[in-house]
């Protein structure tokens, strides 16, 4: 891959990769590290990918694998307490609340979702990957993706409701320059 093609690839995907990395790592420095590491791996190994249309899935799969490796290596990611499942279905006030809340609050609420549910949820919302692409990226069956999306959304609504009521489950450091 030429330098120009690589620059284009970075330009097209680095923001999405960073957002997914941020949703996993839950802090900006680690998200930046993960993003850089992912593109570094592409620069050294990704050229072997024959179907360039799969580049996006390859990048997200790689960032997820690198996150799992980083977590195993450093145990740096804060554990998340189990949230009440809040299995009630989406209500009209949930929609209003989602529209009214600041991006930062929504991001913080997403960070409070259990990791196993947060990863597919982030791919669904941030990159709008299909259930098939999410399954491929995370290496889990389609049925598992469906279940995790369902439970993840319920946890996200519960976390947003908790924030609305002045609560919160895990404090998340304020981002500097990253959030609008």
């Amino acid at each position, binding site marked *: 891959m030429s330098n120009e093609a690589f620059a284009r690839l970075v330009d097209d995907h680095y923001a999405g990769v960073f957002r997914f990395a941020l949703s996993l790592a839950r802090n900006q*420095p680690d998200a930046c590290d993960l993003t*850089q590491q992912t593109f570094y791996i592409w*620069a050294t190994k990704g050229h072997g990918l024959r179907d360039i249309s799969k580049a996006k899935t390859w990048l997200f799969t790689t960032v997820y694998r690198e996150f799992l490796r980083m977590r195993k290596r450093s145990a740096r990611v804060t554990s998340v307490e189990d949230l009440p499942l809040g299995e009630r279905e989406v209500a009209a006030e949930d929609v209003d609340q989602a529209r009214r809340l600041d991006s930062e609050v929504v991001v913080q609420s997403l960070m409070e979702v259990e990791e196993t549910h947060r990863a597919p949820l982030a791919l669904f919302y941030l990159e709008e990957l299909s259930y098939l692409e999410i399954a491929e990226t995370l290496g889990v069956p389609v049925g598992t993706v469906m279940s995790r999306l369902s439970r993840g959304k319920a946890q996200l609504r519960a976390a947003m409701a908790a924030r609305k009521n002045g609560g919160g489950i895990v404090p998340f450091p304020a981002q500097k320059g990253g959030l609008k």
Partner: protein
Amino acid sequence: MKSEEARFILQAYRPNGADSSDPFFAEALAQADRDPELGAWFAREKAFDAAIAAKLRAVNPPLELQDNIMAGARAGLWHRRTWRLPVWLGVAAAIAALFFTLVRLRPAASVDVQQLTSFALSDATRPELHEGIVAGLADLETALADPKTHLAPGLNVTEDELRAKGCRDVQVAGRDVFEICFKRGDVFHLYIARTGEFKTQMGPGQPAFQKQGEMSSVTWIADRHIYVLVSDHGVEGLGSLL
């Protein structure tokens, strides 16, 4: 198809409509058209998903990230190209690598401790690097924040312990350096490296103070480690912590 099953399927339907032609959703979509209650739920679900997606996509990466990616990857591309060289160059590269490995294995540290201090003074001015939640270090940070704790004797922790606790680990001239942030009124950054990794004329009990812009540092040796403490609290403030 039961309504619950249709809901389970439709909650994976992307809010941008990209799944409209996917046969997997066809039956559930048709049912949502027929069933007003299910249809109303689906409309709310799509509206909720669209609102959340828009909020989350408003998160922007740091400005310098794209440049950093390109710089890091250029190094990767260079390394990859070296492996495409002819065989004889490969052999030469292997010999060179062996030479550098042997040089690296020499016991004398060739990197001056000033490089560590300069790194620490610069690194501490970048707050975005020091925001991670490190649950494993809570005890250590509490002890460091205690005014009764004096740092001169060192922390008496090993690299493995710091690594296991999730301490931030950076490379300075290829050497492992650990960094802990703590608050004692102001924010302080403590950098820790092994004594053998950096060349220094300092002996134990001989702290070296330095000022660079608004930041000050004190570097000292204790318990087989080099410590660099940095803050914008001034040289006197740093000395009071030793």
